[in-house]
């Protein structure tokens, strides 16, 4: 398909769905209540929404849906650090029924014991998986969980009269939200760069810590797939100066049941349920985040917390030191249920099998990828990796002028894709692959074969790659208009205005 814009399909008078009629008795009794609105608060002209029949709306969106590649369709290992794994359909089915979908978050506790039990059990399971004392499932996603942890760090220091601590340390291969949330909370951000082997630099950390240090925010393994073996020393160095250590467990998939936040001495950590615990990515949310803390930080958790008195579950709003709300109500319940079901279907042994298989897949992929001309895996040469690898097409670029982005777009012509990783591109011409446990050996072999093909084309017919995609819905876009306030167009109304005045 190359489906046109929905506004272009509009035809006056068409209706997609009709709202329920107001019963005549009500209409008779109340007249026109909108007449009571002051003129300036009353809508004068209906919104210029498109007008389509129901089938037209449906067809439009179903066609658009087919113009996507999700986990269910392709070998989705190219969005490294995103942990694109199989989201079991049974879990979607479990949350689709009215017993969850039509639950109002303010219902009496007595009517929501089932969902509260799931929240509570899920918190306990994540506490065991991380080794932390208490878990909150309120954050809406991973970055919101990072924010929540930063807010707890701030509240913790404030509660101890140490609000002068205004620096947060992170590493460049930790997710950008660590740095950004810290800055948003008012912290000065200190970013550590890796040493020659790709390990975060302990000496740099030691030089950076001090009495202004509020916390270290760090991912491990980092987005390179390299596990920091001196992580305990990092934590100790921060603790020594009175700071807190916060573990970004976005890359936890490869270490489930292998190593935990607790043993490394962390005070706080977070998981992304849509990564490690399989909830669907949904085009970019809804997701769900989980924050784990030691008992020292527990008073600062968002409120309310889910409590269990042995017979029933209830919500504790009376938490004076809490940072308060980080989102409405209790969190993204559907994803909590999905993640709960996923863990329950695997158990301890299964989670470990997840981790081990994900790591095996990653190292297998690494071995196969490195056989392709033009690609390398910078840092820690010859070593194994954990959950993902950040590859570099630097040599291929030097040889052919073709960029990593071009290769990713050309791969789309073969039904797979990859994403060129977070900025800054410390690794030149990057591509981060993370195969997880979900894909079969045949899938990995096919993916490598496509990469080999694309790289081969870069050497033999670079123009084909540089002008890709050729079999996608559309061709290469002219992105510069997006940076110019005179041409960018975030809505149809803006687009019409700007193209009309041209």
């Amino acid at each position: 398909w190359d489906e046109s814009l929905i506004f272009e399909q509009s035809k006056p008078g068409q209706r997609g769905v009709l709202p329920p009629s107001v019963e005549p008795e009500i209409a008779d009794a109340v007249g026109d209540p909108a007449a009571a609105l002051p003129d300036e608060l009353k809508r004068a002209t209906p919104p210029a929404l498109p007008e389509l029949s129901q089938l037209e709306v449906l067809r439009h969106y179903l066609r658009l849906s087919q113009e996507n590649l999700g986990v269910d369709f392709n070998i989705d290992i190219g969005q490294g650090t995103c942990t694109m794994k199989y989201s079991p359909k049974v879990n979607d089915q479990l949350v689709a029924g009215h017993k969850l979908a039509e639950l109002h978050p303010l219902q009496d506790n007595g009517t929501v014991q089932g969902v509260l039990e799931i929240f509570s059990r899920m918190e306990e399971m994540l506490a065991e998986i991380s080794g932390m004392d208490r878990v909150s499932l309120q954050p809406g996603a991973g970055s919101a969980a990072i924010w929540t942890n930063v807010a707890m760090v701030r509240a913790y220091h404030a509660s101890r009269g140490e609000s002068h601590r205004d620096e947060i340390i992170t590493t460049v291969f930790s997710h950008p939200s660590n740095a950004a949330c810290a800055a948003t909370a008012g912290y000065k951000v200190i970013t550590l760069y890796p040493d020659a082997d790709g390990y975060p630099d302990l000496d740099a950390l030691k030089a950076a810590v001090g009495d202004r240090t509020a916390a270290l925010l760090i991912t491990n393994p980092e987005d390179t797939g390299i596990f920091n073996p001196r992580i305990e020393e990092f934590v100790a160095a921060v603790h020594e100066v009175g700071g807190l250590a916060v573990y970004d467990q976005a890359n936890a998939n490869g270490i489930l049941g292998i190593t935990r936040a607790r043993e490394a001495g962390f005070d706080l950590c977070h998981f992304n349920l849509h990564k490690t615990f399989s909830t669907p990515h949904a085009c970019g949310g809804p997701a769900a985040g989980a924050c784990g803390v030691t008992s020292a930080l527990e008073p600062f958790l968002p409120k309310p917390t889910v409590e269990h008195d042995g017979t029933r579950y209830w919500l504790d709003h009376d938490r004076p030191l809490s940072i308060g709300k980080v989102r409405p109500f209790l969190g993204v319940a559907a994803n909590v249920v999905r993640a709960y079901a996923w863990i329950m279907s695997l158990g301890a042994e299964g989670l470990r099998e997840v981790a081990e298989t994900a790591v095996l897949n990653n190292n297998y992929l690494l071995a196969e990828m490195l056989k392709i001309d033009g690609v390398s895996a910078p840092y820690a040469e010859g070593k194994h990796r954990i959950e993902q690898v950040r590859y570099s097409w630097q040599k291929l670029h030097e040889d052919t002028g073709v960029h990593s982005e071009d290769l990713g777009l050309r791969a789309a012509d073969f039904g797979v894709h990859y994403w060129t990783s977070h900025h800054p591109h410390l690794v030149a011409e990057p591509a981060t692959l993370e195969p997880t446990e979900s894909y079969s050996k045949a899938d990995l072999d096919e993916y490598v074969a496509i990469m080999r093909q694309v790289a081969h084309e870069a050497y033999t017919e670079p123009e084909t790659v540089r002008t890709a995609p050729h079999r996608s819905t559309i061709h290469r876009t002219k992105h510069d208009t997006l940076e110019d306030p005179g041409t960018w167009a975030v809505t149809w109304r803006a687009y019409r205005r700007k193209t009309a005045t041209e």
Partner: protein
Amino acid sequence: MPHPYIPNAEPQVKAEMLAATGATDIEDFYADIPEHLRLRRPLDLPEPLRGEADLVRHVGGLLDRNTSTAEALSFLGAGCYRHYVPAVCDEVNSRSEFLTAYAGEPYEDHGRFQAMWEYQSMMGELLEMDVVNVPTYDGFQAAATALRMAGRITGRGRVVIATPIDPDKLSKIEDYLDGALTIGGELDGDDLAAVFVDYPSYLGVVDRKTAEYVRTAHDLGALAVVACDPVALGVLAPPASFGADIVCGDIQPLGMHPQYGGGHAGFIATRDEERFVMEFPSRLFGIVPTTVEGEYGFGDVAWDRTSLGVREQGREWVGTAAALWGITAGVYLALMGPQGMRELGEGLMSRCAYAMSRIGEIPGVEIVDAALPHIKEFAVRFTGGATVAMVNAALHERGIFGGKDLSADFPELGQSALYCVTEMHTKADIDRLAAELKEIVK
């Protein structure tokens, strides 16, 4: 026997792959993890339910312990609403293609970009504003970010909240503004960054002074941030029409089931001015030409304001939030169209007015601000000695979920509760509530 979710755990495959890596044991891959950090015992988790039917029995059994609003007659609202969700909304957002896609490029994920851009565009028409973000987490986050945007745009340090606000939303805003902006004080002064207005207010009232607050803000050189319920905009004037600078809110009413609070997504909208656009932390999808005449492509507008682009140099931060709900709200708006939104808004006001009049006539019960226009929510005050807790318990016994108790948060209203009536309620439902309330407070 490999688990159905882990194909390569099959022993022979495993051995073959291991050989290809040059490792002799899975343990080799973990060589970097010091022994004393290794967990040398199995995790202490419940026994797995590997059979799918067993899993369904367990999880489904837990969920079955809930009583949903599909089973009881519920008048709960207060930020989460049970509006009708057209079947096409569910159909689209349960499609594997949307449900399992993520961060692909605008080529192989062209449909996702287009659907999101169309959402932005339809919201733009509803709000009469040119810039609408890819959804943030929820309306709370949208409000908090809108205020911080106002702070950055004006360079000022204080905001005033002009209308009654959800205490939970206030809690979120307080935490999020901490250190950057102070909240409260006079509606005056040249330090004022923004006036914040809920439209309608938390108590369901369409405050006649809404537009006046906007003018006051502008007179003071501040911005007007208006949080509105998008489902009401078929009848209510869009805030932009009376000058609001930043409009925000939650799109949960536009096609999302309540989901125990999991259906939220926040919108932020502004005029198309660079000083506004450059302060959005969210992604903003834009439409672009391609190398082929007549084709539309999509991409990120002004990427280098985002934390994904420039880390801590970006505006606040952005991550995975609630994209699928944006796509769904787009489907909802496309289905409803201009007439549907108008009819829905009018129908809400009619039902609400009817409910207010039926309940207001009960002795011992008063409607707060009964004379002011309401859209779908209103506060009920019990004046005859009954507490909300007692009333709600009695309603519960009768299969009705009464309104949210406001007594603790709004002591000035006495024993009062916030009731919500939507297009899902029939006259019979409302009459039943009124009859039961009359019986209870008698």
